[in-house]
C-alpha cells in the first residue's frame, strides 16, 4: 500500500513554518515558475527547491514513489512534445540552427533542444517544492491555518478529517478485495475489461456501504462533542506567524516579482540566447 499524503514528522525549520505560510509560498512559487521560461530563473528555482530538501530533512527515499511517477510522466511528455511539434523551438526563438548535419521536419535544432530543456527545467522548479510541501505540512495544523486565512472551519476540518481516514479506508479496501478474491472475483490482468469493472463493483459496494455506517457514527461523535456550536473554534495545533514565516513569504513574493520583471525585460516569457 502506498501512502499518498505523506506527512513525515520531523524537527526542521521548514516543519516549524505554519501551514498557511507554506501554502502561500507554494502558490507564489508556482506562479513564478509557471509564468516564465527564463532559463536563469528556472535554474535558480530548481536549485533552490532541491536545496530545501536537506533543510527540511526529507530524503529522496521518502518521496521516491512520487518522484518516479513524475519522472515517467516527464519523459513521456518530452517525447510527445518532440513528436508532435519538433519545430516549436524554432517558432519561439525565431532562428533555426540544425545540429549534427541533419535537416528536415524532425531534425534536431538547437532551439528545440533549448526549448525542451527549459520545459524540463520547469518541472524541476515546481515538483520538488510541491513534494516538500506535502511532506512537511501537518494536516491538522494545515486545517488550522486554512481557517486562519478565512476558509470556514467546517471546510478545513473536513480536509483534515479526510486525511485522517484515508489510511483506514485503504486498509478496508485491501481487506474487502482479498475477501472477494477468495469468492472468485478476478482482479488480475487475466480478466477482461468488463470482468474487471464488475470486480471493482464487487469491492466498491461493500466499501461504500461500510463507509456510510462510519460517517453516521463519526458525525454523531463530533456533534456530541460540540462540533459546530460556535461560529469559530480554536485549534490545538494552531501556530502563530513568526519572523521566518514573513521572511519566507517575502522571498517567494520577490521570486514572483523577478519572474514578472524578467518577462518585461525579455519582452516575452522566453529568454533568448540565439539572437544577439
Amino acid at each position, binding site marked *: 500500500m502506498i501512502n499518498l499524503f505523506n506527512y513525515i514528522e520531523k524537527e526542521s525549520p521548514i516543519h516549524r513554518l505554519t501551514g498557511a505560510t507554506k501554502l502561500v509560498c507554494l502558490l507564489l512559487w508556482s506562479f513564478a515558475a509557471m509564468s516564465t521560461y527564463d532559463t536563469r530563473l528556472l535554474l535558480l528555482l530548481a536549485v533552490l527547491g532541491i536545496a530545501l530538501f536537506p533543510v527540511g530533512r526529507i530524503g529522496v527515499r521518502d518521496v521516491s514513489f512520487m518522484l518516479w511517477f513524475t519522472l515517467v510522466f516527464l519523459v513521456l511528455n518530452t517525447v510527445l512534445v518532440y513528436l508532435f511539434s519538433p519545430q516549436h523551438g524554432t517558432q519561439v526563438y525565431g532562428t533555426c540552427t540544425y545540429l549534427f548535419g541533419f535537416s528536415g521536419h524532425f531534425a534536431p535544432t538547437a532551439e528545440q533542444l533549448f526549448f525542451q530543456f527549459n520545459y524540463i527545467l520547469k518541472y524541476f522548479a515546481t515538483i520538488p517544492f510541491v513534494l516538500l510541501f506535502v511532506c512537511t505540512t501537518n494536516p*491538522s495544523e494545515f486545517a488550522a491555518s486554512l481557517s486562519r486565512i478565512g476558509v470556514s472551519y467546517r471546510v478545513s476540518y473536513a480536509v483534515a478529517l479526510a486525511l485522517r481516514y484515508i489510511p483506514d479506508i485503504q486498509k478496508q479496501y485491501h481487506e474487502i478485495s482479498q475477501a472477494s478474491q477468495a*469468492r472468485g*472475483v478476478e482482479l488480475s490482468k487475466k480478466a477482461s475489461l468488463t470482468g474487471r469493472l464488475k470486480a471493482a463493483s464487487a469491492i466498491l459496494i461493500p466499501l461504500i456501504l461500510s463507509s456510510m455506517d462510519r460517517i453516521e457514527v463519526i458525525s454523531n*461523535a463530533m456533534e456530541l462533542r460540540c462540533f459546530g456550536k460556535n461560529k469559530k473554534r480554536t485549534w490545538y495545533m494552531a501556530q502563530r506567524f513568526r519572523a521566518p514565516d514573513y521572511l519566507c513569504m517575502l522571498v517567494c513574493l520577490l521570486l514572483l516579482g523577478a519572474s514578472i520583471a524578467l518577462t518585461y525585460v525579455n519582452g516575452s516569457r522566453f529568454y533568448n540566447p540565439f539572437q544577439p
Partner: protein
Amino acid sequence: MTDVIVEFNDLGFQYRAQAKPTLYTIHLTVRRGEKVLIAGPSGCGKSTVANLINGLIPFSYKGEITGSVRIGGRETGEQSLFDISHTVGTVLQDSDAQFVGMTVAEDLAFALENDCMPQKEMKGRVREIAKILDLEEVLRHAPSELSGGQRQRVSVGGVMASDVDLFLFDEPLANLDPKTGKQAIELIDELQKRTGAAVIIIEHRLEDVLHRYVDRVVLMNEGRIVSDTAPDRLLSSALLSECGVREPLYLTALKYAGVKIREEMHPASLPELSLTEGEKEQVRRFFLENRGKGEKETRPELLTVKNLSFTYEKSHRKALRDLSVSIREGEMVAVVGTNGAGKSTFSKVICGMEKEDAGEILFRGRDFTSLSIKERAEHVGYVMQNPNQMISKVMIYDEVAMGLRLRGVPEEEVRVRTEKALEICGLYRMRNWPISALSYGQKKRVTICSILVLEPEMMILDEPTAGQDYRNYTRIMEFLRSLNQRGITIVMITHDMHLMLEYADRAIVFSGGRIIADKSCARVLTDRDVVERASLKETSLYHLAELCGAPDGTEFVQSFIDYERAHERA
C-alpha cells in the same frame, strides 16, 4: 444545581420511520454519584434510551416523544444538543470512530477547541487529562499506533475534558479483548470515584460489568423497563433468563449443582459471594459426579502447518514466527490472543491472501501453498467480522450464488447448490428478499451461507458473534455447531471467553506471532501464565472451584463444560 441528572417521566418514543413505538412508559432517575447499568437484549430499546439521554434524540434522530425527559433539570427539547453535551459525556461503542483528531492530543482537545478555549489553557488541560489517564507518552501518536486499551482511554479523556456531570458508556466492552475489557471497567470505576459524576453503562455483558460495584441494574425488554434494582436482588430472580440476558457463569454452575441463588449470598460479586458449607458440598458433589466423562477420539489431520513465518512487507513487522499447528477433521477450534498477536494474519496466510516467507501448509497432506486464493477458497472459506464488508449484491439469492457464478458453474447447478445452502442456513424462505431488510445477525448468516455454497471442508470465522446479544449469539453459535455436525471443520477467531468454553473443543493461543498454548479450553483458561500473556481472563468458574474447595480447578471447569453440552444437546 440539582442532584438529579437524568429524569424520565412516563416516557414513550417512536422513531419517525417505524410503525411501532420503541419505548413505552419509561420511568428512570439517575442522581449524581450513582453508577447504573442498563442491560437488555438487542432491540430492547437501551440504545434509544442512550440517545434520549445524550440528546441525539431529538436533535439528530427524529421521532415522537411523549412524557418528559429532563437532563440536568431541564427538558431536552428546551436545550440544544450542545447544552446537553456539557452535562452528558458520551463514549460511543466504536472507540475507533469516536477518535476524531489526528493525534491523541488533538482528540483530547476536540471538545475544548469547539468551545473556543484559548490555546494556552487548552494545552494545560490536555496535559492534565493525559496525566490522569496515563497517556502522556503517546500524546503525539495517531490512533492506528495505539492499543485497544489506550484508544478506550482516549475516548474517555475526550469526554472528561469538558467536566460533565454524567458519563454515558454505550457498550464499552465491544471489540475489546478480555483483559482490556476488565481494565476498561476498572477505569470507569476510578473515573467515577475521582469525579463524583454519575455513570450509566449500557452493556449486555453483565458478568464483565459486575467486575466492579454498580448501584443498580436497569433491565429492559421490548421497550419497557422490566426491573430497576440492586444487582444482588436481580441476580436472585429469574428475570434475566426471561429477557435473554446471560447471567454470570458461576451462577449457572451453582444452579446446575442445585444451589438456589439468594440475595443474601451477594451473587453480584464473586469475591464477596458467601456460600454455606452445605452449598459448597453440593458444588463439590456435582463436580465429582460429572467428572471425566468426555470421550476422546483422534481424527485424521485436515490442515497441517509447519514452521510458518510471515513478515509484513511495509512495516517489516514479523507477524508470524515459526508456527506449527494442526487442525483435525471435524474439529471446532478457537483461536485466541490479543489484537496484533497474529490470529488474523494466520488465517490470511492460510487462505492465500498473504504469502508466507517460509514454512509448509498442507491440506489433507497435499501442498496448499501452490494453490491460488480462489482455489484455496474451495477448501477453506473465510468469513470476515463485519458482514457489510462482504455483501455486494442486492438480493440474498444473488449474493449466495455469486461465488458459483464467478466460477462459471452452469446456472442449473448454481440453483441446486444455492438452494441447498440457503436451506441449511435457514434462509430459503427469504431467498428473494433484499439484504438491506435483514438484521445484523441475519446478514452474518448470509455471508456464512455465501461461503458455504462453495462447499469448503473448513471455515475460518473472524469474531463470529462480536457485538451480539445472548440470544443472537446462541443462534449464530448453534448454527455453526450444526454446520460442524455436518462435518465442516470450524475455526473461530474470538475474544469471547464464553464462546470458547461453550463451543470450542480446543483453543490455540497466539501471542507475539507465536503459538503459546494449544490445549483444551478448560486448561487454557485456568493457566495463569497463558491467561496473562495472551490478555485473556480466567474464567469465574475457576474461582468458584477455589471458593468451594474443589480439588482440581481445571477439571472442575471441564466437567462444567461437559455437563452443559450434554445437558443442552439432550
